[in-house]
């Protein structure tokens, strides 16, 4: 396992542990201790990595000096991708701290819950959760961003304002961009994917919404699972499950992503079951924060308005009425074609794959995007809100993940094509 992979896993598992502690103890003080312990451990890990990773040891001096050396290949093959991802991480972190909380979902949902947790001293039953007046704030939404926001305010200021809580998003940026970095294999792919992520997600990475982080973690999860299916390397199984578990405590759409990941996981089991050990079942523990959240929700109470069974029932009601279904499909296509890169990405993915050949990972990424899109259509069919209003204000955001998956597939196939050309030369 290389250093970047270790740091990414540490961040992802650290955020999951943080959520677990927040849900278990319901106290910001315990979370503060846990956070200090995590920061110290991260510092030790980074220091150990700096002293351990010596390019000269991995690439002999003679190799660095020769014209077509491994060192030169490392510089062009890895350094470019790492530099691009780290620059993106730094820029997004600075942008997060540059603007106050002003946008709708950020302020009225995620950071409002964070504010309630901050003033309650933790996540436990209180006037906020009991007060039916605040039902418009979707109190059933997952707890990670509110917990991070409450803790960032507590950690930096000890009071609430419109800047300090946003710093809680920086660890998510770290896990997200490093996740993209470690699941990809070379600099061309890394640079393309990081630039695509910024182009597609845009301000969702710094305005306090959760959709950008869901897309980053979702893409990391599906890509890592696909790598595991392809190679059997269990470090990707762990990273894929951890990123999926993190997505589940970020946003409700991750439950759809979880459903999409099941066929990929089963396919992986079919291909790689001989390489699995009994103790690999422990990887399932990464989902414990989400399981605990499902258990804690009724106690707060934090009940949502987009429950899966009700959604599916309503969606079925639309599907059996053909005129209504076709009308809704047309509205969806109209908005999707004008407001995102989805259709262009889908066309390029198909064209490139059909002409140059899909590899297994790209095919899995494309299949996951297609399944996720089907799920999104079902969710829109089952929405309890006004359909046109819901589509208008949310379609851009929910299509980010499938778009990023398709672009990851394009980047993957582009890299394979470059490799073939270089191999020939």
């Amino acid at each position, binding site marked *: 396992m290389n250093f970047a992979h270790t740091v990414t896993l540490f961040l992802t598992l650290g955020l999951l542990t943080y959520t677990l502690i927040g849900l278990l103890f319901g106290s910001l003080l315990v979370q503060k201790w846990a956070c200090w312990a995590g920061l110290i451990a991260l510092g030790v890990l980074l220091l150990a990595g700096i002293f351990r990773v010596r390019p000269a040891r991995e690439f002999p001096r003679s190799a660095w000096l020769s014209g077509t050396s491994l060192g030169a290949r490392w510089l062009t093959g890895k350094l470019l991708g790492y530099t691009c991802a780290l620059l993106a991480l730094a820029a997004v972190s600075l*942008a997060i*701290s540059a603007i106050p909380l002003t946008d709708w979902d950020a*302020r009225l949902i995620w950071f409002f819950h964070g*504010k309630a947790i901050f003033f309650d001293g933790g996540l436990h039953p209180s006037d906020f959760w009991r007060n039916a007046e605040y039902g418009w704030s979707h109190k059933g939404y997952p707890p990670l961003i509110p917990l991070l926001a409450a803790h960032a305010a507590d950690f930096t200021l000890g009071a609430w304002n419109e800047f300090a809580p946003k710093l809680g998003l920086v660890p998510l940026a770290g896990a997200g961009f490093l996740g993209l970095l470690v699941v990809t294999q070379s600099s061309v792919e890394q640079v393309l994917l990081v630039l695509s992520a910024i182009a597609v997600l845009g301000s969702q990475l710094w305005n306090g919404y959760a959709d950008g982080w869901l897309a980053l973690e979702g893409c990391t999860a599906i890509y890592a699972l696909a790598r595991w299916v392809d190679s059997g390397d269990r470090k990707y199984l762990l990273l894929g499950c951890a990123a999926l578990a993190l997505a589940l405590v970020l946003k409700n759409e991750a439950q759809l992503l979880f459903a999409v990941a099941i066929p990929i996981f089963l396919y992986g089991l079919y291909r790689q079951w001989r390489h699995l050990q009994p103790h690999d079942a422990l990887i399932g523990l990464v989902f414990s924060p989400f399981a605990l959240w499902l258990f804690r929700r009724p106690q707060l109470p934090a009940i949502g308005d987009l429950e899966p069974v009700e959604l599916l029932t309503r969606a079925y009601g639309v599907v059996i009425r053909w005129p209504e279904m076709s009308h809704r499909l047309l509205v969806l296509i109209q908005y999707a074609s004008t407001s995102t890169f989805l259709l262009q990405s889908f066309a390029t993915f198909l064209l490139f794959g059909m002409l140059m050949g899909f590899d297994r990972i790209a095919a899995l990424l494309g299949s996951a995007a297609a399944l996720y899109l089907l799920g999104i259509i079902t969710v829109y069919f089952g929405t309890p809100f006004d359909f046109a209003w819901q589509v208008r204000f949310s379609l851009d955001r929910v299509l980010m993940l499938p778009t990023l998956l398709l672009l990851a597939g394009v980047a993957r196939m582009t890299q*394979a094509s470059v490799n*073939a050309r270089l191999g020939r030369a």
Partner: protein
Amino acid sequence: MTPITESYLENSIGPKRESGRFLLLVRLVIAWGSVIILGADMAITAAPTFRQLADLARIRLNHWGDLERRLKVPGAELEAMAPEVRAGVGLLRGAAAPSYRLSPAIQGEAVRLWIEETAWPTPYDPASHFVLRRAEENTSCRQLSATKGMAIDYCD
């Protein structure tokens, strides 16, 4: 469809495989062309996003002390809210109201959500004696204070 592999490329080269090479070239041009078109479209469309990201990062780096100052001030940047939200919340805090409710006119507006969020931890309570209203609305309660088009009343 045959994947483009090294061996495939090797087999495609040679005088007897000219047609194969031509087809391969066509496939390469179309496939790479589609990627380049997508990349160009994204670069043009997303140029303002990259510019915004660069600007925000530059502003933050150039004004680092400003971040430190803001991080130390409770309630910093509340001025980013609409004037009526700030006025309403200011009236609630000035009156030291333990809870509040909103007038029917405000209840029907989207600004209600922003007031309720910004006013927290002062809870909304439909039975509260403190009522926040627009200054032009009629009232039968005792007005405590008013500012910038908003007023707070005490109702027995």
